[in-house]
């Protein structure tokens, strides 16, 4: 083993060093490249190890190097004599494989893990970046490192097997599918587990291939199972690729919708959309409008944007808002990135999300200078005191945060390092906060609105109370309130919608109310908006195909999971099951008919093809059931992974017969021995003992 490792290192160390240089350089570029003069961060661009440019390198660079390393370790060896010279050594083929992958994983570590670790060290060392480091920032890079291993093993599975190009491509497609999955999932644990599982499956499949590259039947059950799993996920990868292609080139489905919007003067309008394009504008009752400003071409510039100030007022009926959690690849999961302000110095605040405290960095000095936590502004060296879970911290301006809970509002002036209480005009509790914006010829107009128990408290830009608007509707049911402001800042638009705790189907049948009020709280106009008709959304070709070609095994598996979950008390799973079997039963029934019908067709074709190809033993039935369970994906796996016997015409009956079987399955005839030519010169030795025994 030591000799094998030494050989692999000697042959491939240069690639690892080159890889380390290239990846290290690219990672540095990703870390330091900035379009600004000074290194500041935005939530959109991501910070340090989560910057888009950095993740671009880890997402594509690590897998690319993994694939490259796998190929250079195997391809040159595959020359016929070199491969024979390698295999014909008194060590098992599995040991040779182990030697290769052990060396390969270490070399991959040198090329990818080492520069990544250097990047982490750079980011974690104070004084290099004007941003805090938390270990979570490493997770996307680590996930990509594992994905690189998947590609490494995919290279082995691709090159070692002596089968057709389609079978060779499937391991790569399986790796692509894992990439797609790792990028899409929100949990690092799921990403890491899926990458490790696929790397393991590819490794085990390759392990089987190296010993028996030609025959599946000779390999162990475990390696065959791993290969089928790889093939299956390869087909899934192919499916994703096909889906993306269809979505890109397929016809766009007609999607019509109608919704209310508010003009800049507070007049409710009804807008009809077709595929996100406004096709009609009427008044709230559906009558045409004469005002050219409100034509369908100009309307998008003539509407007000309303923000939700509260989801419900009063009794929440046990309703809890669903907590949105960022993906492990997003900065928001670990750090909140605040705005940059210039005076008295260039500073940026970052919030530690799980720790619920904030820290300030001076961009030019790249060092923390202050901390904001439940104890107020603190020196950096002070032990942080986390804000309570009830405290909400939102940016009011770039240099001012509002810290509020149900009973108090405080304003944190970041540049001045000062916290002040904001007095409220009405009774508590506080149900929410929103900003309302409009554009006037003099510049932007902005007000901040708090939803209190009996009304809305409205503040201007300097945090002075300018209005208290009492509720005029039954906010116990219409407690989701959206708020807007006109450009003169003397009118507020309040839109009372059904509270968030009300069931969606019921909420769709309830009217909503739009009111224009002045700063004294007087209602100037009030409009009742009737519920709007819902247009059924046309399904796209891709959606139709993916739904109808989905696997019955996975469909019923998911249904069973929901049923078990419902029995065990999960409301979410019970609702999902109810929706599937009660609310949308006609669609579910249609889907079942299509899905099972197509599965049956594919299974039938698979059965006849397997019979005609003379697959051995119970494999005909096993493959038929497999195809029925997995629909088109199963059929493609069957076509690609089945141990198809090569056939030739039988000399007796002329029907195809497998070349590796002694007797023709059709006529039962054996193979003909070569015709003697009369020129044979055979002087046989005495029959050997061992063969005599076997015969």
């Amino acid at each position, binding site marked *: 083993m030591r000799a094998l490792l030494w050989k692999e290192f000697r042959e491939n160390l240069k690639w690892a060093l080159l890889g380390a240089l290239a990846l290290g350089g690219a990672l540095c570029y990703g870390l330091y490249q900035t379009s600004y003069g000074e290194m500041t961060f935005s939530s959109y661009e991501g910070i340090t190890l989560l910057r888009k440019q950095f993740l671009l390198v880890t997402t594509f660079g690590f897998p690319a190097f993994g694939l490259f390393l796998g190929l250079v370790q195997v391809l040159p060896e595959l020359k016929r004599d070199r491969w024979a010279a390698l295999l014909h050594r008194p060590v098992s083929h599995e040991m040779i494989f182990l030697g290769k992958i052990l060396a390969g994983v270490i070399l991959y570590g040198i090329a990818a893990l080492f520069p990544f670790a250097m990047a982490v060290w750079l980011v974690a060392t104070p004084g290099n970046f004007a941003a805090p480091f938390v270990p979570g920032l490493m997770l996307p890079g680590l996930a990509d490192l594992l994905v690189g291993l998947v590609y490494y093993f995919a290279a082995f599975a691709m090159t070692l097997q002596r089968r057709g190009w389609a079978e060779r491509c499937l391991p790569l497609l399986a790796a692509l599918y894992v990439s797609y999955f790792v990028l899409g999932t929100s949990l690092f644990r799921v990403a890491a587990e899926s990458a490790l599982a696929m790397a393991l499956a590819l490794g085990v499949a390759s392990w089987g291939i190296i010993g028996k590259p030609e025959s599946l039947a000779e390999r162990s059950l475990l390696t065959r199972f791993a290969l089928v799993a790889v093939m299956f996920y390869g087909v899934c990868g192919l499916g994703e690729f096909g889906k993306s292609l269809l979505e890109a080139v397929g016809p766009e489905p007609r999607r019509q919708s109608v919704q209310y919007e508010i003009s800049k003067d507070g007049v409710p309008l009804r807008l009809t959309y077709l595929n996100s394009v406004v096709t009609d504008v009427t008044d709230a009752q559906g009558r045409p409008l004469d005002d050219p400003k409100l034509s369908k071409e100009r309307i998008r510039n003539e509407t007000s944007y309303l923000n939700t100030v509260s989801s419900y007022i009063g009794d929440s009926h046990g309703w809890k808002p669903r907590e949105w959690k960022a993906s492990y690849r997003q900065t928001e999961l670990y750090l909140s990135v605040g705005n940059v302000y210039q005076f008295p110095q260039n500073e940026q605040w970052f919030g530690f999300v799980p720790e619920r405290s904030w820290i300030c960095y001076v961009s030019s000095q790249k060092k923390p200078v202050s901390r904001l936590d439940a104890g107020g502004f603190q020196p950096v060296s002070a032990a942080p005191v986390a804000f309570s879970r009830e405290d909400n911290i939102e940016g009011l301006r770039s240099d001012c945060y509002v810290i509020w809970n149900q009973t108090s509002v405080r304003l944190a002036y970041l540049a001045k390092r000062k916290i002040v209480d904001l007095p409220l005009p009405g009774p508590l509790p506080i149900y929410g906060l929103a900003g309302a914006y409009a554009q006037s010829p003099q510049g932007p107009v902005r007000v901040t609105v708090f939803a209190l128990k009996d009304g809305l408290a409205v503040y201007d830009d300097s945090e002075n109370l300018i209005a208290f608007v009492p509720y005029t509707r039954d906010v116990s049911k219409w407690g989701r309130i959206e708020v807007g402001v006109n450009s003169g800042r003397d009118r507020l638009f309040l839109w009372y919608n059904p509270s968030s705790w009300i069931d969606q189907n019921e909420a769709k049948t309830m009217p909503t109310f739009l009111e224009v009020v002045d700063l004294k709280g007087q209602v100037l106009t009030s409009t009742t908006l009737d519920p709007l008709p819902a247009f059924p959304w046309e399904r796209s070709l891709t959606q139709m195909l993916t739904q109808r070609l989905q696997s019955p095994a996975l469909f019923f598996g998911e249904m069973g999971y929901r049923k078990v979950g419902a029995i065990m008390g999960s409301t979410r799973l019970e609702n999902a099951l109810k929706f599937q079997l009660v609310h949308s039963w006609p669609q579910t029934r249609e889907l079942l008919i299509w899905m099972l019908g197509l599965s049956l067709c594919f299974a039938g074709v698979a059965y006849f093809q397997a019979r005609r190809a003379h697959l051995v033993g119970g494999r005909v039935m096993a493959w038929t059931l497999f195809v029925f369970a997995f629909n088109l994906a199963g059929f493609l796996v069957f076509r690609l992974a089945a141990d198809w016997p090569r056939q030739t015409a039988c000399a007796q009956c002329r029907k195809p017969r497998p*070349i590796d079987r002694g007797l023709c399955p059709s006529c039962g005839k054996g193979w003909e021995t070569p015709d003697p030519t009369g020129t044979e010169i055979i002087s046989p030795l005495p029959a050997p003992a061992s063969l005599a025994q076997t015969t």
Partner: protein
Amino acid sequence: MNPVIEIKGLTKYYGTKEIVRDLSLTVPPGMIYGFLGRNGTGKTTTIRVLLGFEEPTRGETRVFGEDSRRLSPATRARIGYLPEGHHVYGWMTVAECGRFQASFFKSWNQEIFDAVITHFRLTKSMKAGHLSRGQCAGLCLAMTLAPEPELLVLDDPALGLDPVARRSLLQSMLYVTRRPERTILFSSHLLSDVERVADRIVVMDGGVLRADCTVDQFRSSVRQYILKFRGLPPPTPELPGLLESFRTDDQLAITLANPTADTEALLAALNPVSLEPVEMSLEDAFVSYVGERGEKTFFIREPDKK
């Protein structure tokens, strides 16, 4: 004594092309077998199946009683294999090649290694990538022989070598393998080498085994007769064991396998002026044996104008 190599009904396809057909062969210990045949007749394929690099389509092959598809490392240690490409890792020195190879074997005779590389005028510090083809062959041979394998399988070891390198290779092989229990199977196109070392030969033709005998038996079984005529010789008659015939203006040269007294009587019935059996070298016999079958003509005069 158990045979070293047993091949029973071996058939091998590449795709749907039949390369080896129903080959059966037994090699007892201590024999040197020459494996002969034209290019593409299945010699290398047979060797690769035998050593487990390819799987047989049908039939079975055994080495030291073990199924070739599942040769254990211990059995592999008893087999020395020299592939035809003489592969060495170019970045290693000669000494490193030896150390690398030695690390896989329990028994490693450094003296043999040193003797062979010295014979090929190699020094231990030479880079394997800088060696000539003949030197590469020598290094490979040294690595193959040093573990003192019981079975040596050499796939066209002299391929592409000049006569001096070829002779060196042969000498090394003969010198080192001079042990009664050592078995050698080697394929070659160089009949003079085969003649010099082989106890028995196996001849493959079109993927089928056509001859399995000693060199002398082969030579004596393939015989050429020169029949002289006064005028144009008659067309070659149907003869059992006919390999080839060559008709000229007044002569008919017929090469036969396994001629009998009856065959000679049939030739005499053609009424030649003279009928002479000709002694054939192994090379001539082999060329006739695996060459184009049937009659060839070469006339200076046009037959119809005669």
